[in-house]
């Protein structure tokens, strides 16, 4: 009989629990439906030489990271040293998103270019296929061409150490 009086307390605790979990999530991070799906095919011109094209098919058998960046994007500049660090353990392909060729070239000359290759997505069409809704975004793609992880927003030191590097180690094995 006395238990009846505990009902409001229990209801309150359940509600508080839901709110506590909800408040710790980042509403800006929309989970991508592309994770664990095949990476959308593309063929893009290279930044250094537009006559050369490069696509997903050529990366087969390799673990690689597609990093969408732009010279006009401030968080890209912030994550750039971490991209450089990441490029020491994996092939990182830069995809220059909705940018001018000259701007991108100058930006890379000033900030360092550790990309294995830079491809140009002038219209953002490839970005659309990958569900990019803001730069920077990075996709880890495995040897079979399947997207295994999507980093939304800049790579943080924490994301690099706790998620990206362990995942790359696992995929390489």
């Amino acid at each position, binding site marked *: 009989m006395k238990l009846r009086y505990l009902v409001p307390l229990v209801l309150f605790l359940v509600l508080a629990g839901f709110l506590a979990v909800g408040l710790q999530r980042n509403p800006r991070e*929309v989970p*991508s*439906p592309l994770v664990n799906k095949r990476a959308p095919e593309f063929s893009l011109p290279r930044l250094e030489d537009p006559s050369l094209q490069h696509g997903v098919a050529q990366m087969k058998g390799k673990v690689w990271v597609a990093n969408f960046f732009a010279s006009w994007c401030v968080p890209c500049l912030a994550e750039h040293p971490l991209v450089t660090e990441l490029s020491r353990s994996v092939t990182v392909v830069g995809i220059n998103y*909705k940018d001018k060729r000259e701007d991108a070239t100058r930006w890379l000359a000033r900030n360092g270019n550790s990309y294995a290759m830079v491809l140009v997505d002038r219209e*953002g069409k490839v970005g*659309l*296929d*990958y569900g990019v*809704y803001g730069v920077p975004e990075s996709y880890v793609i495995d040897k079979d061409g399947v997207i295994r992880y999507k980093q939304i927003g800049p790579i943080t030191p924490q994301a690099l150490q706790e998620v990206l590097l362990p995942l790359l180690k696992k995929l390489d094995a």
Partner: protein
Amino acid sequence: MRSAAAALVLALAAGTSLAQQARPLADDPALEAQVLAIAEHLRCLVCQNETIAASRADLANDLRDQIRAQLKEGRSEAQIKQYMVDRYGDFVLYTPPVRPTTWLLWAGPFILLLAMIGWLVRLLRSRGHEASAAPLADAELERARVLLGEASEADVPAGAATGPGGGAKAKTGGKASAERRS
């Protein structure tokens, strides 16, 4: 000086006319209406409280272009929505689809409503039970009638009249005994 001012006016005029031409819209207003009708049901991922139809974000612009191009190719609304869901997940849809993970979302309000109605019915029933468990005695009923002014004091049977009087006496008696004790 005057020519400089004229040049400035001309430059501004040219600027505004350019600004008006900048937005690429379909030539066909019917198609444009269709584009907006679809875009109204899709969430802009950059400014999440806006629809793709309402948002001025770059991405929303691109996605509107995408809807326009796909409609021109003759694709259906369902196909276009699927295209968006394939890239951005169910989150782009303002109306979430009904599936096991969203059952609670869809049914929740109704479950809550039914539970509240059930609780209310139970409460009302138990209350009715309490009231009928203690029916008024004839004497009490008579006294209630007197208090409500429906019957005169004279009509009240003698037994009922002693009720309150006796009670008052008992009270004063009690008081007296209390005084005596002190």
